[in-house]
């Protein structure tokens, strides 16, 4: 999952493909992440369709369909817009975030029922995004320098050998730490474990399908399981497009209301 593609989940920042395994072995974990960021920034903007499947502990499912837009600006500002398409009672709801390097994010929510755009505090980013196991923070966009990294070991996930990298936030706002299993063959994460601020295991993300789109390895299917609540959210991507020339004004109240 791409930071700027679908503004979903910072764990992608820990995991994007590098030039090759031998080079990665010679790099520090931070250098790996920085390299990933540089690769991510190949695309200036992106658009994709997203399906979220919410599964509760009894196994019943609810489905959310969204369109996701993202853009990286030259000054390091990252912008993202999510627009809900289904179900009917949330259709037209949109979420806009502007992420500034070294500053608090700005976030807005548009609810069609109120017909007003509401600025929301980014201090609440650790909260669940629309009932999913992803938080607003996960759905936003992040900066690598907010974390320190450590290579723990190498081990298999399924039949894929992986590097295991621990990311510890410099300031424990949302997570205590995140451990990523990075596939050695393509440097895409296969698994990510999230720990809460008290150090307890919180949730696990499994990335089960990857596609190369316009030369960029893109996770297309993710399954986030919250071990504390026994709930799961699946995210499926489709119709992913990079570098489509989204203008800056796309990431404003005007397009939140327009819904596309």
């Amino acid at each position, binding site marked *: 999952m791409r930071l700027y593609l679908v503004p979903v989940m910072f764990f992608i920042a820990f995991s994007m493909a590098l030039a090759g395994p031998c080079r990665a072995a010679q790099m520090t974990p931070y250098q790996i992440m920085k390299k990933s960021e540089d690769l991510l920034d190949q695309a200036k903007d992106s658009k994709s369709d997203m399906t979220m499947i919410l599964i509760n502990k009894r196994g019943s499912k609810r489905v959310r369909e969204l369109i996701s837009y993202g853009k990286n600006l030259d000054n390091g500002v990252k912008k993202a817009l999510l627009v809900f398409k289904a179900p009917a009672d949330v259709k037209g709801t949109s979420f806009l975030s502007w992420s500034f390097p070294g500053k608090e994010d700005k976030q807005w929510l548009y609810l069609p029922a109120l017909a007003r755009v509401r600025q929301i505090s980014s201090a609440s980013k650790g909260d*669940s995004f629309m009932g999913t196991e992803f938080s607003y923070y996960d759905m936003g966009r992040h900066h690598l320098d907010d974390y320190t990294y450590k290579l723990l070991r190498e081990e298999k996930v399924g039949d894929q050998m992986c590097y295991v990298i621990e990311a510890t936030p410099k300031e424990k706002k949302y997570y205590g730490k995140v451990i990523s299993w990075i596939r050695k063959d393509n440097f895409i994460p296969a698994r990510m474990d999230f720990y809460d601020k008290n150090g307890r295991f919180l949730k696990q993300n499994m990335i089960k399908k990857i596609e190369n789109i316009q030369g960029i390895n893109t996770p297309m299917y993710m399954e986030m399981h919250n071990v504390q609540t026994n709930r799961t959210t699946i995210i499926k991507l489709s119709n992913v497009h990079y570098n489509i020339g989204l203008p800056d004004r796309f990431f404003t109240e005007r397009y939140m209301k327009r819904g596309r």
Partner: protein
Amino acid sequence: MKIDHGGPKLGIIFILIWILSSPAAYAFNYEGLSFDGHLESRGIKPINSGTPKEDMSYELELDTERDLGSWGKFRIALRAIDDGKVIDPRNKHPFNTFNKVYQDRNPSINFDEAYIDIYTDRADFRLGIQKFAWGRLDEINPTDNLNTQDLTEFAFPEQSVRKIGAPAFKADIYSDLFNTEIAWIPRYVPYRLPTPEERWFPPILKPPTVVHSSSGDIPVTTHYEDIDLPAFKLSNSEIGIRISKYIKGWDTSISYFSGYDPTPLITGTTDITVELLDPSSFKTQIKTDAYVKPRLHRLQVFGFDFTNTIGKFTLRGEFAYYAGKYYSRKTEDIMREETTKEKQKEIMDKFMKNYFESGMKESRQVFHMNPDVEEKKNSMKYGLGLDYIRGDTNLSVQWIQEYIFDYDKSRPVYLNKNGVDTTFTISIKQLYLQDTLEIGLDGMYGVEFRQYLLKPYVTYSFTDNLKGTIEARILQGRYTDSAIGQFRDNDEVYLSMRYSF
């Protein structure tokens, strides 16, 4: 829907229900054409004894949108309701009209919105029936005066639903400096009130049934008349301009509105009939006919609003200055002026004079009275709101105040005490079970009138499409001539089941 009319009426609503019960009728999206909506059944159970009972009501909303690609879209949102209203036999079609305050059709259909959007590089245009949303506060927006509201159920449902779409033209012009919204409403669309027989008709708009005078009690018969709309010409149109700018984290706007005051204002004239029953003893009978009619006044509003986040909170603010706003004077005060001994003597003297000048033929005479029922004042209304979101908990509080300049205590007006009216609102919402269960409380407290409205509720989503709500609506107030206090016998339990498609 506020009285028992002897059983629910079916008609077209149920035909639509039947059609929609077919699996083939579920929402679809075909080549840019989308079709959404909901079907809702509602029940009301009044808590206080003695208030009218209500039938089940049904609502069907259909929202059709045609995406016209990068240059625009076309949308029609229809709302059909079967709610057990009083029916005027002269009604020939079910569509609510844009020229009446008292809408008495059942079933009724509203064009909530019906417009075409045209997008260009630097501007968006919207032409058709539309709703505007200005300001930053919730439910009470001092700067938001472009749409009137459907007040047939007082403050229910929420403001965005109560708003009546107006045929209008809107232009949103975007520049690097600021964004400008220009709205033009060629013809005022009146607010809606329930008919006087209904449960939510405001008691403060009802004249007394008897006037106590020095010569005895005088019976009053009230006649409710509908509004006279201003002539359809350019000078009677309404316009609004709002300029918005994002400044270092602050979303800010300034606005101007020139149009008709969307607040209900009722004026009354009175015909006093004096009839000589017995010429030998000069025994007379006096009756009064009161004619109550909505009245319009133009208004200018200068406003600004802002919002920003401060730590974990979102701060919202809104201010409006009203130049030349009319207020309704209190009935009791008007009656006191109109029923003085001097005025009664003046009428009787005129009656006797006419009687004798007519050769004792005019034994029944009508005197037309046009009391001064309004006060024109400059005023301002402003408020602040604070939101806090933590986990699945949402908390929002607001403080809103209205201040009337040069308030004359000897001529009191409704809904304001000594020139000030202060309201606090609170909204608490807690989500459970992945947002499927919502428990909340909405409340409002009026300081000067010691009145409050409480709405505790529980909503549960059985599926993505099916949602049920149970809500209590508790209204209380020390004074029966206050906004909420006048409905203190209207407590009710509200149940609804909504199927979205």
